[in-house]
């Protein structure tokens, strides 16, 4: 049976309690630093912050609805090729862990010197919504208010919808984490269960000397209910998006606001190429090319290659899309990028029976093959 401990919550609330847990981790957990979302000093929004001074943990707030970026790429930086023997703990949302595991498979990160602490994810706000909601008053109070509203089942916690990606997220538990902060179903006036989820996690948990918990009462039920609700919303989203993009004309209209700024690509944690082909001169055309197209078709929209860019990106990374929604969060023109990528990813991941981030041992589909597969494509008998 997995080890379960608990973080007791007093009147100062759940965020302070989690800060206390992270302090204990720094003191006794064998880690040299903690990567966690924290309120910036002297002021500003919430950003992933690498903290080694326990005092600085006073600003840590991994429960905040802020989700300015998917931190998988940052964890890559902290782990890839590390030889110093120094360890970090990273407090992450489930989609950040899944993206990080995808990067590990591509040798862009390593699991050796990192302890993954996963949140049972209460969801996040878009950057635009968080700016309105989270930056006024006592920031920790805002987080508490948000958590209360989520726990109470409010569909608009803090008067804002959760980000679209979070509303359709069918993986709200951090399956790949070493330690899980079991928020789902927890009574946030009393305690948060901490679940050891791997051998490494169990080992660390034993060292911390936290009080034992009898289990995580209500967690399974809360998680199942949330997963069912989000899965239903996801399927409705798939259907609506598929209908809107069922033809090339539909897709062109869907993407018509795109200005090829590539923010979505930069924000995507699993867009893994070191140099994007769209930043090279491969598709830099000569002036005559544009004029030729215009003459041939009567008119061409500029910038050209917006649909082409998205299709190419889909071909590269849709099998690895973890549904974090940062592409949509980053788009200056509100193109619903996440919806499109998830809808196509459902097909491409399904074709290869692949679930990104499920396990570091599953090879990305385009890196392997079997001799005896898809033989119907060429009509060969094997």
């Amino acid at each position, binding site marked *: 049976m997995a080890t379960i401990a608990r973080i007791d919550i007093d009147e100062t609330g759940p965020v302070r309690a989690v800060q206390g847990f992270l302090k204990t981790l720094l003191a006794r957990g064998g880690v040299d630093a903690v990567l966690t979302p924290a309120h910036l000093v002297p002021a500003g929004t919430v950003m992933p912050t690498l903290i080694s001074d326990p005092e600085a943990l006073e600003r840590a707030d991994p429960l905040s609805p802020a989700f300015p970026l998917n931190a998988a790429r940052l964890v890559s930086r902290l782990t890839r090729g590390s030889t110093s023997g120094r360890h970090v703990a990273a407090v992450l949302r489930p989609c950040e862990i899944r993206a990080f595991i995808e990067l590990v498979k591509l040798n862009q990160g390593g699991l050796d010197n990192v302890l993954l602490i996963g949140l049972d994810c209460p969801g996040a706000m878009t950057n635009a919504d968080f700016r309105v909601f989270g930056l006024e008053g006592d920031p920790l109070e805002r987080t508490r208010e948000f958590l209360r509203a989520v726990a109470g089942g409010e569909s608009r916690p803090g008067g804002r919808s959760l980000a679209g990606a979070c509303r359709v997220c069918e993986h709200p538990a951090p399956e790949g984490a070493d330690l899980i902060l079991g928020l789902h179903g927890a009574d946030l006036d009393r305690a948060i269960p901490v679940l050891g989820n791997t051998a490494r996690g169990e080992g660390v948990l034993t060292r911390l000397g936290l009080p034992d918990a009898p289990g995580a009462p209500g967690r399974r039920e809360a998680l199942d209910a949330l997963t069912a609700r989000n899965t239903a919303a996801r399927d409705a989203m798939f259907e609506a998006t*598929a209908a809107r*993009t*069922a*033809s*090339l*004309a*539909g*897709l*062109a209209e869907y993407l*018509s606001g795109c200005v090829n700024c590539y923010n979505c690509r930069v924000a995507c944690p699993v867009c893994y190429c070191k140099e994007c*082909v769209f930043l090279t001169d491969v598709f830099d055309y000569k002036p005559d090319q544009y004029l030729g197209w215009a003459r041939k*078709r*009567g*008119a*061409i*929209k500029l910038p*050209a*290659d*917006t*649909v*082409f860019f998205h*299709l*190419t990106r*889909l*071909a*590269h990374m*849709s*099998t690895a899309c973890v549904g974090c929604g940062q592409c949509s969060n980053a788009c200056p023109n509100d193109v619903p990028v996440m919806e499109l990528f998830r*809808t*196509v990813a459902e*097909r*491409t991941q*399904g*074709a*290869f029976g692949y679930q990104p981030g499920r396990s570091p041992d599953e090879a990305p*589909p*385009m890196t392997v*093959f*079997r*001799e005896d*597969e*898809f033989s119907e*494509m*060429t009509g*060969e008998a*094997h």
Partner: protein
Amino acid sequence: MSQFEPTIVAFVCNWCTYTAADLAGTSRMLQPYNVKLIRMMCTGMVDPKYIIRALLSGADAVLVSGCHPGDCHYINGNYKARRRVKLLQEMLAQFGIDQRRLKLTWIGASEGNDFARTVAELVEEIRALGPNEARAVATL
């Protein structure tokens, strides 16, 4: 009304299908002129973006054709190509691009007949299917 003449872009492997196409030509087999051949060193080199580019530019179909299983000069490029074509078929189908518009075949160097027949059949199939929608969309 003149009949619709499909344009087909074929990415063919130098070691097998290209040679087969050459053979079909030198043997004076009758072939439709709809196919634009692009010679690659291996189907494993056919980057998905060039297939997408061809289809968005108005090609009515793309053919990828390489060595039979076991015959690839780079050991397994053809198997990798098969996964990529599968991925693209799956992806493009979402946008109403019929999977028949992206075809994968294995045609060996001595199979000039096979090449001529495959191409002729593909042209007929695509003629029946009609033009690729991309020809009519100006904002791709």
